[in-house]
């Protein structure tokens, strides 16, 4: 039979198999294989503010980090729990308004408002999203889509919380270096934290809820409760971002509910590589500076994100980090059959 066909095989590199699960790290080479990418990431991010040419770009880094927090939350919810959150702006808005209120009406300094806004905001968001958690996935998408749009209109119509003008005069961070390093370190912290979380036992339960929630119910666990925990984690991330944002801009208004915050994390996740927690952060680093450059074009940048997003989804691109990880961990060869 001369019907030879070629097929591409992908095999894990030997070094990956040896170091999987940290069972046997025998040499410096294997140690480096594992740690170098992570070190590059951490060091790179910490060094970033120092190498930025101007204050404008330093501010951009802070904004990137805030979007990165949202993107981390989105990736976590979508690919590890199965809930698609179409309204990141909801978390930013709630966290931001809370921080602004705590600061302007109660006079707390940022050091106090940020943690409170994060946790309280997370609790409020989870509570508001609770009704749709026992239901199927599409309801969660619909409700998260709607909340920012509706809240924006309600604040505008009822003219509460500062209405269209917003709340002004929010205190800023003590010093711009603190501002930058705080958000950067938060991103790094939560990046590694989430990676750890999804491999803990409770993380496995989340992934199981995504895979097959009936089986999880049959094992005696209340799915709604675990979904609520996951939503709480993601909304804390978003609210943290919102609180920081408000202190950076010293103002909070309905633009916190803008579509930018909803769609950019999704685009960043898809481009950067869904499922790898690093991918979304990378995606933000790519998209946010581009968006800054495109600011002159007004809302065209949203069209831009959306079109790239659709292109990636339709052509089933795996995303940059997934591609990168594959290249790093596996090698390919052609095999004739």
């Amino acid at each position, binding site marked *: 039979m001369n019907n030879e066909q070629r097929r591409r095989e992908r095999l894990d590199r030997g070094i990956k198999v040896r170091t999987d699960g940290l069972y046997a790290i025998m040499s410096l080479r294997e140690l480096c294989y594992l740690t170098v990418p992570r070190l590059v990431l951490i060091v790179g991010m910490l060094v970033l503010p120092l190498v930025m040419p101007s204050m404008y770009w330093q501010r951009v880094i802070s904004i990137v980090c805030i979007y990165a927090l949202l993107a981390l939350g989105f990736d976590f919810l979508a690919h590890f729990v199965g809930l698609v959150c179409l309204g990141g702006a909801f978390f930013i808005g709630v966290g931001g308004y809370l921080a602004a209120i705590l600061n302007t009406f109660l006079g707390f300094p940022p050091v106090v408002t940020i943690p409170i806004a994060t946790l309280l905001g997370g609790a409020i968001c989870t509570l508001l999203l609770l009704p749709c958690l026992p239901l199927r996935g*599409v*309801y969660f998408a619909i409700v998260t*889509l*709607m909340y920012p749009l509706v809240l924006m209109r309600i604040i505008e119509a009822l003219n509460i919380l500062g209405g269209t003008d917003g709340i002004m005069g929010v205190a800023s961070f003590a010093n711009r270096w603190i501002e930058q390093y705080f958000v950067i370190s938060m991103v790094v912290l939560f990046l590694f934290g989430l990676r750890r979380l999804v491999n803990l036992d409770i993380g496995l339960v989340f992934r199981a809820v995504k895979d097959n929630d009936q089986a999880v119910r049959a094992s005696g666990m209340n799915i709604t409760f675990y979904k609520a925990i996951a939503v709480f984690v993601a909304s804390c991330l978003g609210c943290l971002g919102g609180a920081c944002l408000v202190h950076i801009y010293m103002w909070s208004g309905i633009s916190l509910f803008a*579509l930018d915050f909803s769609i950019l994390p999704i685009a960043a996740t898809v481009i950067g590589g869904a499922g790898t927690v690093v991918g979304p952060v990378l995606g933000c680093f790519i998209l946010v500076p581009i968006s800054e450059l495109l600011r002159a074009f007004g809302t*065209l940048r949203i069209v831009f994100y959306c079109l790239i997003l659709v292109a990636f989804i339709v052509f089933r691109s795996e995303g940059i980090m997934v591609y990168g990880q594959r290249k790093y961990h596996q090698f390919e060869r052609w095999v004739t059959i």
Partner: protein
Amino acid sequence: MDILIYGTINSMALALMALGFALVYGISRVPNFAHGALYVISGFVTWGFVRALGVNYLLSIFLTMIIIGVIGALIYQFILIRVRGMAISEIIASYAIGLAILEGLRWGGFKGMTYTLPVFVEGSVDIAEIPVDFHRLVVVGIGGAVVAFLWLFTHHTRIGLALRGMAQDERAALMLGIDSDLMAVVAMALGSMLAGLAAILLLPLGNIVVEAGYNVLILAIAVCIVGGLGSWMGAVLAAFLIGFAQILTVRYLGSHYQMVVALLAIIFTLILRPSGLFGQQKELEERV
């Protein structure tokens, strides 16, 4: 009395907005988040024909409906079909397309108060001593006709029955020789045409603004959730519920509370009766 009249008008308007969304979700289980975008595009296309090109109004309406149906079908055929079955990707893709269209229109300079469509019939009539525009009566009339037509279509024509079959059980429909992809395209085209019809009927009552796209999306989703995702009769009933609730709030609390009503309606439905009024979702969910 005037509550009755305004309520009916408002409810019919909501029903028209929501039917397109309900149809597409009911048949292909894809939430069409581009619904609002299609609504606004229809408005602008009609405006283009009527004001810019000076085409006869009726002809423009006809052309717009066809164009918007084609646009909807194209969206499905080229984008959504490739992500069919992958729930997360479907949702994201549909949302992204909707946003792209709406924000693209906003960037294109289509904002401001300068775009209007003429009403069908000028003047008003007094019903029980309350002045009602003719146009609003036309809205109610056509709305009722559309609902009746839909009912007949889905119960008595082959394509309509095929669509219902697909809505109930896609696999079974496939086995009976109903091409589910084709049906989904048809559903999407129909849904877009309904959005277009709603736009054509409702936009003359105000201006064509991009914000209307988001408002329509919110209201359509609210109505569909209360009525039960996938049930178009439920959507009609829910439209009446929410429509009257909104008019009552406007009367007694003030007109800014309309959106609050929509939000509260959704939350209450999800807490008390998640499958909505006529939703079959609960039953389907129970199949293990």
